[in-house]
């Protein structure tokens, strides 16, 4: 029904939309999500042909190319067949008309009905969208933003258009009103083709069948709403979901590094992406479809950084790690949870090559790791369980943090020092010469852990294996260390294998959780799912044993009052 091909919109030098390809079928709702400034509104306005910039490409609506139509014909289509609910900013409604008159206006304009009929229709619509009767003759400035939004929706629906474009339809509403209006929209939009432009993932997920993620004027990922939101495959989509406060995700909110810019060449997201390679900065990726999903990424979406295939480690006849299959995607955190003795540390050390693999294999970026040379260790680093022991007592803080660079033979001594200072800064440690010359036994446990983190970060690894990084720390220091790790992930796109016995800590930092028992992975899934709907009895018992502050425990209250 609506088919957009190779749409390019620019204002002067600024390219706002860059080669957009979209198809919307009749009766379908497509949500287009993205941060502000990504070109959502421009796309909506282009379809309405209200955009002021240079527009190239084709927008076919029922077979007609809207961009080729003469103005008069376009005017007939506009508001009659295609209507738009504008983003509610103050000057959208005309201040000198009453609300009712404004809703009537498009009906009369198109000469479809008599004035009385138009008034009836407008009244009906305003009623439907819950504007109180006594507000009908009010002027826009006398209405609350919620009421204005209802009026705008009513106005767009006045001529019963085939295609409804909604630009941030619910953003100005509070949560309760939003739910109400959303339900109404859902009802009217049931058989209507609609395009929803929003930055709000909740609105998108509740209104739309499909979702397209827009960034920097380009569609990054498109697919069925549920699929995309539950398992995003483009780094940007994932980052967007991580930054979005909601009741499903259990991980702490994470921003996206950097600011939105429109780079001259390459993928628009590459300056902020977690898995950039050379080509990302040179060429714009094509939106390619496959497995019910369209993705514009040179790397085919989020890559699997490290995976294990039936990895087994035995000591004598005892299998401490038993046929473990795990994967860690670029930029994500996988928490490995289990009680002590379940083989977590052995698994980590086997991945690191500190223990010889008994069976199975480790794959780094889908290439089997046979010999772990400096290349491997440059990409994969580990924070050891006992940070105090993992720092040599003979090395000062600076020497210890520089050590990986010494081993790898990177840079001159000054460069190494410089780099060590920088990671110490990132780990929020002082860089005074007094501190740099301290030895591990002179540091607090929090400082030691930070130094160990700094040392692991100095090689700019892509994967960090953190073995119980907070076990020896107080809650307050633990919180800071976890925040630090999350920040590093946000800033550097670091992937993490977070090993812990504490499922409560794991849920705050991880995207996925794998539960380990007696050397085997018994359950694995999105952190929110594992925490809220565990499948295995052992996981349930872990959750039950996890720390909780039962301040409002109902049983507690009832037993007190009976």
């Amino acid at each position, binding site marked *: 029904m609506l088919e957009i091909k190779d749409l390019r919109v620019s204002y002067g030098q600024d390219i706002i939309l860059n080669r957009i390809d979209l198809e919307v079928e009749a009766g379908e709702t497509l949500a287009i999500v993205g941060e502000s400034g990504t070109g959502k509104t421009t796309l909506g306005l282009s379809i309405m042909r209200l955009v002021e910039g240079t527009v190239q490409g084709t927008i076919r609506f029922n077979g007609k190319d809207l961009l080729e139509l003469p103005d008069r014909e376009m005017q007939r289509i506009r508001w009659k067949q295609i209507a738009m609910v504008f983003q509610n900013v103050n000057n959208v409604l005309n201040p000198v008309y009453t609300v009712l008159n404004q809703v009537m206006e498009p009906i009369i304009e198109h000469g479809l009905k008599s004035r009385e009929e138009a008034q009836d229709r407008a009244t009906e619509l305003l009623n439907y969208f819950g504007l109180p009767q006594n507000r009908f003759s009010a002027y826009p400035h006398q209405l609350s933003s919620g009421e204005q939004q209802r009026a705008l929706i009513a106005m767009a629906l006045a001529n019963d258009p085939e295609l409804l474009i909604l630009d941030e339809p619910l953003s100005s509403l509070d949560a309760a009103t939003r739910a109400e209006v959303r339900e109404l929209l859902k009802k009217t939009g049931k058989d209507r083709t609609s395009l929803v432009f929003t930055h709000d993932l909740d609105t998108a997920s509740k209104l739309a069948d499909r979702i397209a993620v827009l960034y920097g004027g380009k569609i990054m990922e498109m697919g069925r709403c549920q699929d995309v939101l539950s398992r995003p495959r483009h780094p940007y989509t994932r980052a967007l979901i991580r930054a979005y406060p909601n009741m499903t995700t259990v991980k702490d909110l994470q921003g996206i590094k950097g600011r939105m810019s429109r780079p001259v060449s390459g993928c628009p997201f590459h300056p902020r992406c977690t898995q950039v390679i050379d080509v990302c900065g040179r060429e714009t990726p094509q939106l390619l479809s496959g497995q019910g999903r369209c993705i514009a990424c040179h790397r085919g979406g989020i890559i699997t950084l490290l995976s294990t295939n039936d990895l087994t480690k035995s000591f004598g006849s005892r299998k401490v790690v038993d046929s473990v299959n795990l994967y860690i995607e670029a930029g994500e955190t996988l928490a490995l949870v289990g009680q002590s003795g379940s083989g977590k540390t052995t698994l980590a*050390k086997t991945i*690191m*090559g*500190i223990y010889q693999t008994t069976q199975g294999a480790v794959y780094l970026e889908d290439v089997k790791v046979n010999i*772990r*040379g*400096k290349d*491997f*260790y*440059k990409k994969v*680093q*580990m924070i*050891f*369980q*006992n*940070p*105090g*022991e*993992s*720092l*040599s*007592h*003979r*090395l000062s803080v600076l020497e210890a943090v520089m*050590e*990986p660079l010494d*081993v*790898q033979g990177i840079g001159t001594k000054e460069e190494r020092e410089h780099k060590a200072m920088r990671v110490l800064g990132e780990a929020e440690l002082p860089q005074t010469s007094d501190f740099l010359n301290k030895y591990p036994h002179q540091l607090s446990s929090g400082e030691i852990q930070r130094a160990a983190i700094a*040392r692991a970060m100095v*090689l700019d690894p892509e994967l960090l294996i953190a073995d119980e990084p907070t076990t020896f720390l107080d809650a307050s220091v633990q919180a800071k260390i976890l925040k630090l790790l999350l920040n590093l992930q946000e800033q550097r796109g670091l992937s993490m294998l977070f090993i812990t016995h504490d499922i409560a800590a794991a849920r705050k930092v991880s995207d996925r959780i794998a539960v380990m028992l007696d050397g085997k992975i018994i359950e694995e899934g999105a952190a929110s799912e594992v925490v809220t709907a565990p499948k295995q009895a052992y996981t349930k018992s872990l959750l039950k044993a996890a720390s909780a502050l039962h301040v409002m425990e109902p049983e507690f209250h009832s037993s007190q009052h009976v």
Partner: protein
Amino acid sequence: MHIDLKKEIKESGPGKTGLTILLVMIVVALLAPVLAHYDPYQQSAWSLLPPSLSHWLGMNHVGQDIWSRLVFGARTSLLVGFGVGILSTLLGTIFGVSAALIGGLYEKVVMRIVDAFIIIPMVIIIILVAAYIRPSILTLILLLSLLSWQGGARIMRAQALSLKERGHVSAARSFGAHHFYIAWRHIVPDLGPILLVDFIYSVRRAVFMEAGLAFLGITDPTVVSWGMMMRDALSFSYLNVWQWWLVPTGIALSLTIVGLTFIGHAAEPVIEPRLRGTEIA
């Protein structure tokens, strides 16, 4: 591993005594040309003279000044001792640490060689070999070193095996470090005190061996040595020359060995802390 070897030795009475003796011996050896009034090799017509003001310990059977020979003999003893100490400790460390780090077949081969050498009575081999090649000082040092590093290697390996499981060693490996780097930066520094104990015992053994071999007359006869002096003196034991010829030499040798033993004994708790016994409590 924060064991202060200096403190360990200084705080024990025998340790202090041993150190004093060794220091005196070293000073004597270093200042030999000053302390000796005569060339120790210079022969003269005045043989078997009793001590006098000009010849403090008299003259030997070929008219050489015994005092001068005693002083220069310290040089030989200590040179062989320290030479062997350094070399055999070095070999022991190299083989012990590398066996521990590399493991596998290499470790098995090295350790079986060590076992073999430890079983074979070293003294007999040295006597046989020395009798055959009549070693100069340098060859003697090499020979003794080659036959005496094995005990040290065992200790180093055991210690390195335990050290290599430490967190900072695993960490270094996780940066991509190779065996040599790990040995040099992480293992050997922590072996320090043990290296010293091993070194002291090697020195002691070498001093003793050198004297023994010289006494048997199978070392380089052109180099003055306490063992050789005792042998020469013994053949004139029917005269009273032994009083100023045999006794001072024997005392010098014994003192050196006792001194080294004292130091080693004082430092031994480093290897085996249980030897501290009740001193801690």
